[in-house]
C-alpha cells in the first residue's frame, strides 16, 4: 500500500516578464519566485488497485511521482509505504526496494544489453547471481524478449526498449509500480502490452500508480482517479464518482468541466 499525506514541493521559477516590473523590497527587479509544483496532495492506494493520475502538462504529475518514487524529497508531507505484510517501511533505500519506477526519463544504459542491465541492477537490489538468473529467465519470457535480451539496447527498436524498461522494473518483483506516462508515444500494440501488464499485476495484488493523458485508457483501467491541476488536487475518487460529480458521461468531459470551473473561478477572483 502506498499513501501520500499532504505532499508539497516547492520550486523556483523565473517571474513572467510583465510581472517582473513589480519591484521587491530593495527596489531591484524580482526575477525569481518560489511556487509549489505539488501543493497539498493526499491519497491512498491499496493492494490490487490501479490509481490513475491525470492532469494537463505542467500540472505537477512528474514531480508528484518522483516524490512517491523517492527520487525527490518532499518539501512538506510524507509518503508512507507498507510492504506485502502491511508493515510500514521507513528507510528510504528499503522504500525503493518496494517500488518499481518507470518514466519517460528513465532510459537504460544504451551500451549494455537487457540481460547485463538485469544482472547489475539485480545485484544492487541485493539479489544473488542465481536469483538473478532465475528471475531474468522468468521476466524475459513474460515480456517475450528472449530474442533481443543479449543485444545492446542502443540497437533495439522503441517497442523493444519499452519492454526492456519494464523488465528493469520487474527485477526485484516490487509490490508497488509507479508509471509516468508509460504509453506515451507508443503504437497501439506496444501500449496494449503495457496495459495488459498492468492488469495482470493488479490481479496479482500489486498496487499500480500511473499518470497519463489518455482519458479513455484511464476510465477503463483505473479503480481510482486523482486529477491535479497547477499542483492542486481537483478531484479524487472512482471514475464513476468523478463523472457523477461533474454531471458528464466520460472522463474527458469531466476533466474539461473541472478545469473550466477552476479557471472561471480564479478569473472571477482576479476581477474582484
Amino acid at each position, binding site marked *: 500500500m502506498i499513501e501520500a499525506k499532504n505532499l508539497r514541493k516547492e520550486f523556483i521559477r523565473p517571474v513572467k516578464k510583465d510581472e517582473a516590473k513589480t519591484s521587491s523590497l530593495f527596489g531591484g527587479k524580482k526575477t525569481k519566485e518560489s511556487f509549489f509544483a505539488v501543493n497539498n496532495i493526499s491519497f491512498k492506494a491499496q493492494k490490487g488497485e490501479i490509481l490513475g493520475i491525470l492532469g494537463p502538462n505542467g500540472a505537477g504529475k512528474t514531480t508528484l511521482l518522483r516524490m512517491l518514487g523517492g*527520487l525527490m524529497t518532499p518539501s512538506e508531507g510524507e509518503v508512507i509505504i507498507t510492504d506485502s505484510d502491511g508493515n510500514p517501511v521507513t528507510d528510504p533505500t528499503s522504500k525503493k526496494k518496494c517500488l518499481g*519506477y518507470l518514466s519517460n526519463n*528513465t532510459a537504460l544504459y544504451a551500451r549494455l544489453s537487457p540481460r547485463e542491465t538485469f544482472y547489475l541492477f539485480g545485484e544492487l537490489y541485493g539479489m544473488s547471481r542465481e536469483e538473478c538468473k532465475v528471475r531474468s529467465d522468468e521476466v524475459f519470457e513474460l515480456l517475450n524478449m528472449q530474442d533481443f535480451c543479449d543485444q545492446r539496447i542502443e540497437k533495439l527498436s522503441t517497442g523493444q526498449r519499452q519492454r526492456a524498461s519494464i523488465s528493469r522494473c520487474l527485477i526485484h518483483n516490487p509490490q508497488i509500480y509507479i508509471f509516468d506516462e508509460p504509453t506515451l508515444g507508443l503504437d497501439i500494440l506496444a501500449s496494449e502490452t503495457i496495459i495488459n501488464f498492468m492488469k495482470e499485476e493488479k490481479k496479482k495484488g500489486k498496487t499500480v500508480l500511473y499518470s497519463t493523458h489518455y482519458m479513455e485508457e484511464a476510465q477503463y483501467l483505473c479503480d481510482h482517479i486523482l486529477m491535479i491541476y497547477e499542483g492542486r488536487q481537483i478531484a479524487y475518487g472512482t471514475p464513476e464518482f468523478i463523472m457523477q460529480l461533474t454531471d458528464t458521461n466520460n472522463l474527458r468531459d469531466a476533466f474539461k468541466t473541472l478545469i473550466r470551473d477552476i479557471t472561471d473561478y480564479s478569473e472571477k477572483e482576479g476581477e474582484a
Partner: protein
Amino acid sequence: MKNKPFFTLYKKEIMDLLRDKKTIIIMILVPLFLYPTMMIASLLITTGIAKESIEKEYQVAVVKTDVSDEVFDVLTDESDDYDYHFKKIEYELLDDAKTDLTEKKVDLVLDSKKIPADKSLVGLDHLFEVTFYDLSATTNSMNACQNAETVLKAYSKNIQEDAIRNLFDDPEQLITPVLVNVESISTTEENAGYVIGMVLPFILIISILTGAIYPAIDATAGERERGTLETIMTLPVRKSDIMISKFLSVSTIAVVSAILNIVSMLFVVLYMYRIIDIQGLGLSSLDLKQFVPAFISLIICLPVFSMFTSAVCLCVCIFAKSFKEANNISSPIMIVFMFASMLSILPNMKLTEKTALIPVTNISLLIKSVFSLDYDIHLVAIVLFSNLFYCVVMVVLMSTLFSSEDVLFGESAKGVHIFERRANIEKGQIPGYGDLCLLFAGLMLLIVYVGSLVTIKFGILGSLVVQILVFTIPLLYAIYIRCDLKSLYSIKLPKIRQALGSIVIWAGAFLICQTLLALLSTLFPVMTESSEMISESITDAGFIPAILVVGICPAIAEEGAFRGFLFGTLKSKTKLMIAVLVSAAVFGIYHMNLLQFFTGLFMGIVMALMVYKSGSIFTSVIFHMLNNSLAVIAEFYPDLILKIPIIGSAEPGVGGYAIMFIAGSVLLMLGILLFGITFRKPVNENNTTQKSE
C-alpha cells in the same frame, strides 16, 4: 556487504564507459598513436627546416662598385668554413636591387664602399664598408643577412688578429684577454632528467585532464541527456554511492590514460635518442636506477592528482544539461590547467613550501624536480597532502552538488546554487561535520596566507583584521544556516559567583601554564624564540591600542569562534569530552606554534569546560581577556611584573616552578569550588531565566 552496491555501481560505470568508442579513442589511441606521431613529425620537420636553412643557396644582389667583386669573393671564401652558400647577381644601381629585394627576387642586397687603409697598421692597401639591405620580416632574407654578417665579422676579426700578430711577438693574451671555459659536470642522468622534466609535466597533466574530462562529461551530462541518471536514482542505493562510484571510475580512466601516456612517451624518447643524438645525452650510459625514487613519488602523487582532476571535471560537468554544454563549460578548465602546468617551465619556478600548495602547478613542479634529481621528501609530502586536501574539498563540493535536486533534475536549472537557499533551511540548525572541517580548514589557510601578510604590512591593524575574520566567518555561516545563535554561542550572563570563579580559575590555570611552558621549553629549546616576534609591533602602537587589539579583541573573537561556534556545535553532536578536546586542539593548532599548541590545548580545555558548566561564554571571555592583557602589561611595564615574587623573577628555578604549580592547582581548585556550587547538573541551554541583551 555494506560496500557491495558501490562495487556493483563501479563495475557498471566502467563497463558503460569502456564500451563507448570515444572513451577508447581518447584513452588508448590518442596517447599511443597521436602524441608519438605528433612529436616525431614535429621533430623531423624542425630538423628538416634547420638543415634546409643551412644548405640553402641565397641570392645576393651585389651592387657594382670598385670593391664589390672583392667583397663577394671574401664572402664566398670565408663561407666555406660555415657551409653557407651565396649566389651573386650583379646590379648597376642600388635602387633596382632594392626593388628586386622587395619583390623577393633576391634575398639580400649588398652595397660596398672602398675605404683607404693605413698599411702600416692593418697591412692592406684598402678596406671596405659594407651595407646589407634585408627584409627582416622574411625568414630567408633574415637568415641570409645573418649568415653574411657572421662571415664578414669573422673576416674582420681575422684582419684584426693578423695585424696584432704583426705588431707583437706573443700577442695571444691581447687577442683573448679573458679565456672562458665552461665544463658541465652534471651527470648524464641529470641532463636527461632536466630535459624530461621540462616536457613531461605539461604533457602528463594535459593527458590526465583529457583522460578525465571525457568520462566525466559522459558520466554526468551524458547520463542526464540519455535519461539514465533518473533510472539509477530509482535503485535502492545512496546518492553518495552513486557519486563515489562515478568519481572513482572517472579517476581510474584518467590514471590509466596517464600511464599509457607515460609509456608511449618513454618509447618516443627512446626512439628519438636513436635517430638523433641530443648533445651528450648518451642513453647507453644512463643509470636508470637513479630514477627509481622519482618514479615512486610520481606513482604516489599522480593517482591523487588524477582524482583531484576528476573531481574538478565532475563538479563542472554536473551543471551541464547536455554533452555540448558540458564541452563548452569544461573548456575553461583546460585553459586553467594548461596555464598552471606551463608555470613550471619558467626557469625560476622551483618546488618550495609555497609553490607546493598551488594546485596543478605543484604536480608540474614535482615532476620537474624529481626528474632533475633535485627533490626533497618533505616537499613531496606537502604536494601529496595538499593535493589530497584539494581532492577532499572537491569531493565534498561534488557531494553537495550531487545531492541537490536542482542540479540533478534541472527543474529550476536557472536557479542552480551550490548552497542550500536560506529560505529552505529550517530554524535551529546545527552545522554539519563537513561544514565544520571546510570552515576551519579555510579559516586556517586564510590566517596563514592573508593573516601573515596583513600583519606584516599593517602591523597591529592587520591582526585586528584577522580577528574580525576569525569572528565573523563562522558567525555569518551560523546566521546563514539559521542556527539558534543564543544556544550555539552560549550567550547568557554568568552569575557573579561564576564570573569571580573564572578569574580565580584563570589565575590558577595561568600559573600551571607557566610551569608547563618551562617544562616544554626544556624539551623543545628551539621553539621559544618565535613567540617574541609579535611584541615589536605591539610596543610601537602604544598601551591602549595594544590592550584593545591584543588583550580584548582576541578574547571576544577567538572565544566566539572556538568556544562559541566550534564547541557549541560539537557539544550538541558528540560526547562532551570529545567536544572539549577537539575544540581545544583546534584552538591549539590555530596558534601555529608548537609551544603555544600545548598551552592553547590546556587553556582550551579549561575554557570549554567553564563554558559548558556555566552555560555562558562570558566566563571564558573574562578568562581569555585577563590572560592576554597580562601579556600586554608585561610587555609595557616589565618592572611591575618583576616586583611580583617568584613569577616575576627571570629564573624561578625548580623550586619556584614547584611553588607556582602548587599555588596554581590550589587556585584552580578554589575557582572550581566557586564555580562548582552550581555543579549539581549541567546548565540547561533552554533555561532562559537569565537573559542577556
